[in-house]
């Protein structure tokens, strides 16, 4: 009998110690500095957390601009995140960074699943800006990026123009990523308006040049009359272009893709790729960091306490727009 009471009491104590997750998180007041100078406080630290931190596109655009911003403002900037595309690892890194109370957090919006950890950062009073893709359901203070649906739409409209609205089209990217699926949707919504266009396949190139080239070779074997191919990740374009060049069909098969790394620009110059849908990635992180800075320094105070007033004193949603790079303007980007 005594054992029964001990077990019951233990279970009740355990239940008393049980805490269910909150249904909504409340934002805490932001940590602000009273200085309103254009130069930051030396102990301020702004942290960028991304995934695939070593990806050349991120290094050359996002991270380079973020570092330049840190030097200009004379504040410390740190870049953290897993080397590979690993969203749970990015979430773990953000969780660990929150515990170190950085001045501001700049987060790459890689997947809607990071909404909870963004809310945790906001609830901890850390100014938090999301860039690249927006995170619905998050309480982020601001977002800067491009609409991936528009990237798909731009590619769709261009490939229709290049092929005269008829022929076989294939497309590839990383399957399963939210922003890329939105891009695919944008492309397909344009193509479905043209009955003479036949979409012959959607392929996963795993963000790998060799894989993109292998898939393209297979497409060329299965469909020698393919009219155009669209790419959606940074490595799609170089891979598609490689296979098309090797098949001796450069210029005959129309290629549109994303990003504007030096190799992409060179392929446009050579006439292998006809159009690049580029993002203004430098603007994401430069202005994202500046938004954090302005929130911390209350550069434009709109209320006595922004959090209590339920507002942010920086733009809530910024679409930085797209770059359309073709043979006509490619030199401008090569020689920048």
């Amino acid at each position, binding site marked *: 009998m005594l054992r029964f009471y001990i077990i019951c009491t233990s279970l009740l104590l355990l239940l008393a110690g049980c805490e269910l997750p909150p249904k909504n998180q409340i934002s805490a007041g932001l940590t602000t500095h009273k200085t309103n100078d254009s130069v930051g406080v030396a102990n301020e630290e702004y942290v960028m957390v991304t995934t695939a931190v070593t990806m050349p596109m991120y290094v050359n655009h996002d991270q380079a601009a973020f570092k330049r911003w840190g030097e200009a403002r004379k504040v410390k900037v740190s870049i953290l995140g897993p080397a*590979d595309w690993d969203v749970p690892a990015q979430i773990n890194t953000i969780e660990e960074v929150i515990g170190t109370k950085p001045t501001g957090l700049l987060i790459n919006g890689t997947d809607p699943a990071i909404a909870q950890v963004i809310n945790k950062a906001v609830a901890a009073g850390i100014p938090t800006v999301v860039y690249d893709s927006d995170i619905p359901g998050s309480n982020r203070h601001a977002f800067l990026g491009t609409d991936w649906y528009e990237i798909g739409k731009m590619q769709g409209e261009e490939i229709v123009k290049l092929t005269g609205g008829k022929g076989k089209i294939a497309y590839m990217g990383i399957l399963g990523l939210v922003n890329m699926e939105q891009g695919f949707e944008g492309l397909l919504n344009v193509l479905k308006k043209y009955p003479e266009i036949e979409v012959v396949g959607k392929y996963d190139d795993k963000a790998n040049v060799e894989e993109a080239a292998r898939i393209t070779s297979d497409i060329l074997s299965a469909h020698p009359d393919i009219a155009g191919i669209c790419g959606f990740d940074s490595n799609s374009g170089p891979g598609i272009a490689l296979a098309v060049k090797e098949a001796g069909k450069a210029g005959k098969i129309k290629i549109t893709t994303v990003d504007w790394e030096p190799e992409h620009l060179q392929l446009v110059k050579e006439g292998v790729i006809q159009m690049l849908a580029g993002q203004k990635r430098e603007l994401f992180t430069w202005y994202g960091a500046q938004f954090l800075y302005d929130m911390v320094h209350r550069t434009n105070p709109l209320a006595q306490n922004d959090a209590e007033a339920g507002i942010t004193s920086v733009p809530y949603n910024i679409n930085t727009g797209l770059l359309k790079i073709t043979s006509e303007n490619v030199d401008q980007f090569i020689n920048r």
Partner: protein
Amino acid sequence: MIHKILESRVYSLSILLVLAALITSVIFPSTFPTFENFSQILLNLSVDTIVAVGMMLLLISGAFDLSVGSVLAFTGCLTAYLMHFFGFPVPLALTIGLLGAFMIGWVNGYLIAYQNINPMIQTLAMMGIVRGCALMVSGSGIQNLPYWFNAIGQSKLLGIQMPIWYMLATVGCFTFLTSKTIFFRRYYYIGSNERAADLSGIQVKKMKMVAFIISAMLAGLSGILLSSRLGAALPTMGRGLELRVITAVILGGATLTGGYGKIPGAFLGALFMGLVSNIMVIARVSGYWQEIILGLILIATLWLDKYLQKKYSEIG
């Protein structure tokens, strides 16, 4: 005492962990030695540890499973798919999800144990098949999961988030099983000398199949926990998990040839890797350097362990 430390990876790794934690506490007194940070370290490694327990069992028996990361993703996505698109109640969706993991483990185990297919080839092939299935089921991922499903991974008990408790329960349960029960202790015999184990009457094939099923079920459980913690099921979950887990398990005392290793070693190996990652985040070590430093530390740790064991055999 010194003999024990030199003899067992569990002891030497524990001492290394304590030393690393003490040094880091001195260097970063305001950010490292806090309850929140330690909870976060344990939470971040909980999924890896649960998978590592299954992998340790397999490595003790002389096999390994490369499909665990894909099984994790598939189970999480399948469970989420059933709840989100078909309105299945949480317990039923969980049961079907785990049943899916069971079936994958059974297929792996049957083909490897009874059809003599090489474990690396079989589980590598299964890794691709199951990842494809996860992509088919979830597309770009499934959000807005039921509150009570999210509560599995987001609730707290005594201030500590539930995945940590599940991890401790799994480690405790399998530590008991592998150290106190005849059935599980036979895995050491199988891993040391499979033919001798077979001749002595142990049902080697059946036991190997059971080990693959347990490994897949634990990966499935981790998939459910991770989806529940994130509040979303992503087809990209668990990418690269297999290598991370095998590294942790080998660091924890297992060998690729089988017959060695203890379940607490799997936990300590994962804890060591989690601790190193955490220290690098707190020290703001750039992402470029993290992989290099982690690799160098792993090599140094294993070399130190071999050196200590050599010294031990010289003393002994």
